[in-house]
């Protein structure tokens, strides 16, 4: 018998709710941030090397692709940070009631939007 396997039950067998969507998003943003560590290491090396390497790196980061990547990583960073705190609270045994889980989920989304907006407002205005 062909049984549906756990991660591949979407969307036929499984209805999305905010709780499961945020859980998947936590993993996706985590993977994105792990990939971002390549740029972080690259940037650190370019600062240490200086000269042309830094100029090329800086030009890439300042390009529209670079800015788009940074924007995506900033969302991923703030989301993973806020939702990570939510996970730590669960690990400590708090917030398991359905209403609390929903409320903390929406709080994470609002906090992510707010922090990302404030960050880029600062970049644009500073």
């Amino acid at each position, binding site marked *: 018998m062909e049984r549906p396997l756990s991660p591949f039950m979407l969307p036929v067998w499984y209805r999305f709710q905010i709780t499961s969507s945020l859980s998947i998003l936590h993993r996706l943003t985590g993977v994105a941030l*792990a990939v971002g*560590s*390549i740029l972080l*290491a690259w940037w*650190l090396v370019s*600062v240490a*090397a200086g000269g042309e390497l830094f100029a090329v790196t800086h030009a890439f980061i300042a390009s529209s692709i670079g800015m788009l990547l940074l924007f995506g990583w900033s969302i991923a960073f703030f989301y993973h940070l806020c939702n990570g*705190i939510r996970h730590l609270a669960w690990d400590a045994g708090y917030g398991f009631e359905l209403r609390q889980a929903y409320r903390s989920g929406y709080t994470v989304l609002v906090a992510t939007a707010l922090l990302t907006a404030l960050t880029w407002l600062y970049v644009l205005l500073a």
Partner: protein
Amino acid sequence: MAKAFSLSDSTALRDETALRRVRQHGSARDGLREWRLQRLTALALIPLGLCFAASILWLAKSDQATAAAWLASPVSALLVILFVLAGLVHALIGIRSVFLDYVHTRARLLAAELLVRAAAAILAGASVLAVLKLFLGH
């Protein structure tokens, strides 16, 4: 029937050549260590990450000399090194758990894990060397 040799026997030394250990049957018995390390690094990454993000924002429109001077100061050098190392350890555990869910053959799992471990080691080494170069050259 003879009593089965048990690795959980408190007097038995852990024998890594036991067949069931070699064939990876049963619990590895050290899963909690990774779980705990992921939470510990998560806790550390809250202040380290916020501090790093604030510094990057502050550096956003500066030139290479300003960034180099910032990385050369002892406090920021230490914080960046701790951020990179905690971040990579945290990422490694996370990526590994993704592999365990989606990579279903033993050979591919091993290859993926070795690849990611190598990548993490290279990124950690490169980042730490870059910061140390600026710090020591100051």
